[in-house]
């Protein structure tokens, strides 16, 4: 429990750091971005929107940085992330909440599948060294070096076309309205197959490699020798003794890879024009839509922190040592 509370405290601290970072980054923008935007959206911005922009960019001359910082927090607690320029005058929070479920589903499902698949293959590759499983290594090395988005481009090039089962872009068929019905769900699944496959192929190799190396390290430990000596079946030793112990570093490595996978997913979404936050970020970048960019960064960071917390709970359940001191 103490361990769990420590982790929660740490993630709260990290969230605070990320938000503070998010507060200071736009203050590095040279010149007066708000003025540039006001000229760009001649007459379209209400005075309230302009004021909110000045708070966001820290260009309010009358206030100290500290006062601005407090205002920023105040806005955040009211769920106000500012107004988007690209989809003016929609609030950023509304845009993000419409695109976040797409990304969460895509990343969530593929990451879980990729983790289990990769770990399973890693167990095999580590346990049966010198067999066909070693052939996985060069392939996975190559695949882990390929940028996610390039793999996506290749997938679109090779697998999509007018007659293909796989659609090349979008999150659901045209003419459909997002709803939980028998038309929308199959279409959404069909559209997500190729992006999911791309992320799966690129991310699975990391799990295979780390699990293989841990298996190799663990399998020369004394307790494995003892387990063999007791006459336990090879399968039992591999799974209950070696894999169980080799899994722990892989679970804690989950935290690190997650940020990387999320970064890759954003790019895959861009390539596939998938309606998630990555694609929104891309559009925001093109339009220099700073409020949207920052809102997306904040949401991504907080999602990653929550996922990390879940991974920590899993670790807590897997490793009895963390539970020892009550």
């Amino acid at each position: 429990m103490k361990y769990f509370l420590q982790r929660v405290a740490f993630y709260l601290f990290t969230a605070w750091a990320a938000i503070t970072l998010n507060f200071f980054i736009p203050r590095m923008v040279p010149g007066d971005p708000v003025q540039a935007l006001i000229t760009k959206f001649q007459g379209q911005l209400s005075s309230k929107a302009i004021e909110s922009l000045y708070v966001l960019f820290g260009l309010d001359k009358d206030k100290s940085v500290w006062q601005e910082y407090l205002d920023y927090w105040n806005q955040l607690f009211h769920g106000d992330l500012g107004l988007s320029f690209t989809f003016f005058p929609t609030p950023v929070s509304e845009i993000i909440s419409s695109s976040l479920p797409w990304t969460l589903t895509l990343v969530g499902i593929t990451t879980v599948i990729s983790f289990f698949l990769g770990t399973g293959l890693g167990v095999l590759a580590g346990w049966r060294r010198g067999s066909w499983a070693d052939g996985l290594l060069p392939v996975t090395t190559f695949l882990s070096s390929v940028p996610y988005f390039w793999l996506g481009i290749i997938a679109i090039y090779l697998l999509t076309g007018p007659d293909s089962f796989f659609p090349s872009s979008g999150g659901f068929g045209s003419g459909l309205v997002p709803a939980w019905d028998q038309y929308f769900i199959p279409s959404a699944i069909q559209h997500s197959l190729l992006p999911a496959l791309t992320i799966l192929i690129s991310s699975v190799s990391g799990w295979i490699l780390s699990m293989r190396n841990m298996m190799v390290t663990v399998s020369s430990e004394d307790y494995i020798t003892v387990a063999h000596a007791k006459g336990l079946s090879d399968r039992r030793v591999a799974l209950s003794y070696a894999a169980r112990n080799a899994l722990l570093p892989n679970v804690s490595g989950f935290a690190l890879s997650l940020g990387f996978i999320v970064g890759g997913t954003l790019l895959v979404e861009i390539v596939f024009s998938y309606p998630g936050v990555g694609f929104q970020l891309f559009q925001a970048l093109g339009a220099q839509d700073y409020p949207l960019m920052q809102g997306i960064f904040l949401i991504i960071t907080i999602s990653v922190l929550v996922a990390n917390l879940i991974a920590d709970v899993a670790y807590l359940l897997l490793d009895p040592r963390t539970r020892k001191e009550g």
Partner: protein
Amino acid sequence: MTIPTSSLEQVIPGQGSMAQPEAGKPTKAKRQRFRFISNKKAAAGLIILGIYVVVAIIGPWVAPYDPDARGNDLVQPPSGAHWLGTTHLGQDVFSQLLSGTRSVMFVGFFAGIVATVLSVLIGVTAGYLGGRTDEGLSALSNVFLVIPALPLIIIITSTLESAEDWLIALVIGFTSWSWNARVLRAQTLSLRRRDFVDASRATGEKTWRVIVFELMPNLTAVIASGFVGTVIFAVLSEITLAFIGVTSGTTWNWGTILFWAQGQQALAQEAWWWFIPAGLAIAILGTALSLINFGIDEFVSPRLRSVGKTKIKTVDGRTVRMRIGFTPVLSRSAAPHTHASPTPVIRKEVTQ
């Protein structure tokens, strides 16, 4: 703590005998270095990396065309004149690829150096000093560890007015040091209680001297592997930034090629020569760097080496699998073995 000089004398048993290994020392060092190269993976990786470095240096000069020069052959497939075809403006893709190598390699290595220096400063200091310093620095690196790096880099770069290569490299370097710092801290923690460190402290060496001359040589492999890992990450990040169009766009790199290919519907035009070579260049560079890293890992911990054939067919047609820690003993007699030898466990592993 003072040590009587007499015991110091004993620690170095005679300068005369030291002279002998002095002569043998270079050869030993050479052999060790040679052993790293003799690792097939590392050697292959270093050779490929060497080719990339050469291209990075001479690329812009040997490129057959100016990468910006427009021509009349629009979106042409590879031919004798344009080895990798042309773009929508008639630019030569091969020249763009060659010229772009320099920027990619520069950002990769520069960011790698920045991140490595930071990680050594923070990781080793935290590990060696311990206490409050350690807690503070560890918290800092953990924060950077869990904040997703790529979105952060994108956000920072997009606010920069002109994102030149060196600036991008700095941003990447400053956001990607944390993992190495954590590894180095753990390694330093395990080293700091060793006898040789205690000894050097006891002889009154200054803290920085203990760190630089006693600890650092033992951390070389970890630092090197961290450096290579960061270079991979930096290369991928830079290309990603160029691909989504947040870099300045005045210098060519492989991401810029992909940016234009994506923006100009190269896919719809089936212009495979436009986007496949750049991606392959990234993948091969990444593979080479990973191979070097495997080489380092295997050099440090020989257990990880991939073994040769482990399945052996015996004369009587049984298949036996070899494994670390086990010596398969085969005999025709069905009677169980009794082991009087000091070999810890001898296990028959007969499949089929």
